[in-house]
């Protein structure tokens, strides 16, 4: 059986160069960077190199603007809460988009319990914010605007440069969560006008266990994990040296290979979507069409009349690893808040699958995926009462409505007694 990994957004394997760079820091150079002897000083040097590599990836001016955290989630928490707490006297209002990652959304909700207020800027059906809405959301009390570069579910590339200009004009720092874009799209903190940028090397062939937060010198921030004076007093705790070193090397390689990786995945993305839409009726792409509005790695698909988890499991049993934003797949039994925010019909949200490409995927992988996925859809539709009722004209398609009957969602609400959430 062919093995095709199409879940690069969840994580990526560590490059052999990265692993080799990390290796000595487990055994031979195991020192704590806070130590003042050989063992500590050696790793201090290594952290500095990694900081420079991280800075280079996002075109930051100095490695002193780079802070290490444990992951993308912690970086987002630090950016949001660290800025909020530092500027409490200035104001207690935040602006975020409705489709931020949960690490941003939940951080904001935590602050709301502590007396902050937050405006969530809505997105359109492709997931884009409206810059006029963003501008209107900013008040004199706003201490931070958080806008992700690329959406982790539907691949939408937000207009961060333009958002940066508005923020600069209004004098509010902009935090750009680049977790879903770093290593795949060019990032330039100055071009973005970003006061803070976060990313996570395990998304571009670096190790887990390290997150990065860029902070422009002008942005005030306080630490949220308290203790020692590591990371210039902004992040206490013994540094995860091997992961930081490995992450730095991953960043250096990502910067160098970025054009090739982007071109390669963009070509496969097109081949995959072209193949799927040709082979499978009643399938739809969520988020922008592949091109300048969408990241080159992501396809978010809704296949009508069948549910997501079954698709995911059958893909897996056929060697294809994919993700899903469907409610059955999440522990909370809720569909992804992103699919909710773009107003996706519940039936389509249920049939959701996310495929994300990587540098090692091949055309043969894509062709196998198209062929296999078409079979899976056929199998699941064969089991689906909804497909049956659609064939019989009892319910209609949402993707290609004919006006001949009630929708799947209406039907589902009828049989379950209430509307799904």
């Amino acid at each position, binding site marked *: 059986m062919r093995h095709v990994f199409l879940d690069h957004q969840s994580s990526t394997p560590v490059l052999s160069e990265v692993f080799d760079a990390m290796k000595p820091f487990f055994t031979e150079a195991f020192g704590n960077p806070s130590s003042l002897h050989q063992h500590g000083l050696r790793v201090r040097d290594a952290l500095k190199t990694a900081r420079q590599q991280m800075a280079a990836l996002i075109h930051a001016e100095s490695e002193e603007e780079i802070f290490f955290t444990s992951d993308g989630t912690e970086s987002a928490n630090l950016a949001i809460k660290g800025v909020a707490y530092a500027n409490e006297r200035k104001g207690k209002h935040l602006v975020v988009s409705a489709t931020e990652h949960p690490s941003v959304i939940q951080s904001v909700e935590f602050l709301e319990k502590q007396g902050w207020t937050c405006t969530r800027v809505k997105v359109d059906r492709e997931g884009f914010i409206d810059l006029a809405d963003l501008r209107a959301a900013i008040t004199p009390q706003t201490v931070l605007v958080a806008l992700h570069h690329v959406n982790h579910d539907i691949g939408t590339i937000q207009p961060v440069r333009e958002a940066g200009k508005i923020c600069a004009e209004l004098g509010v720092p902009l935090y750009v969560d680049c977790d879903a874009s770093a290593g795949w799209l060019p990032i330039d903190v100055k071009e973005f006008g970003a006061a803070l940028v976060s990313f996570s090397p395990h998304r571009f062939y670096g190790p887990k266990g390290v997150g990065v937060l860029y902070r422009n010198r002008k942005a005030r921030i306080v630490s949220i994990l308290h203790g020692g004076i590591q990371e210039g007093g902004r992040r206490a705790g013994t540094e995860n040296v091997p992961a930081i070193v490995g992450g730095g090397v991953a960043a250096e390689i990502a910067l160098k290979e970025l054009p090739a990786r982007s071109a390669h995945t963009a070509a496969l993305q097109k081949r995959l979507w072209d193949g799927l839409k040709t082979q499978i009726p009643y399938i739809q792409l969520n988020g922008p069409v592949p091109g300048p509005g969408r990241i080159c790695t992501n396809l978010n698909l809704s296949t009508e*009349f*069948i*549910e*997501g*988890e*079954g698709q995911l*499991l*059958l893909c897996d*049993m056929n060697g294809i690893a994919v993700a899903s934003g469907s*409610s*059955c*797949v999440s*522990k909370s*039994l809720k569909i992804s808040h992103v699919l909710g925010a773009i107003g996706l019909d*519940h*039936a389509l949200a*249920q049939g959701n699958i996310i495929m994300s490409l990587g540098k090692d995927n091949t055309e043969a992988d894509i062709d196998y995926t198209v062929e296999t996925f078409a079979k899976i859809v056929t199998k699941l539709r*064969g*089991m*689906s*009462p*909804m497909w*049956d009722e659609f064939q019989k004209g009892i319910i209609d398609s949402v993707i290609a409505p004919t006006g001949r009957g009630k929708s799947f969602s209406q*039907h*589902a*609400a*009828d*049989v*379950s*007694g*209430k*509307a*799904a*959430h």
Partner: protein
Amino acid sequence: MSDTYTLYNPTVMEHFMNPRNMGDIQDADGVGEVGAAACGDIMKISLKIKDGKIADARFKTFGCGSAIASSSMATELIKGRTIDEAMSFSNQEVVDALGGLPPVKIHCSVLAEEALKAALEDYVKKHPELAGKKTAEQAVTA
């Protein structure tokens, strides 16, 4: 990676991959279609009843792996039972027969129970004489 790792136990996976009794019964004696508001799953069970017993049971399911496995297992379990026996069918039987389900997926087995009961009710509705018998019986046992 030589082993296969699965979200569900082997029994659940087997019933998901090779569901028993998948389909519709053309001249069904009872059909039930229910939905779970919690996650949007929909399950349809059709029954063929002969001599007060379930002669055949078929399902169609729009739902996750455990929903499909639950309907497969429920229809397997129910075949050959009398209507009264089937009326007291509980989702726990499905869970046990499947060797367990993740806590967040127990509702899938409940859905199977509900679909079965809906199909039985449909049958009973079409056979008012049974309803009377049932009520009388219930009065006795109560």
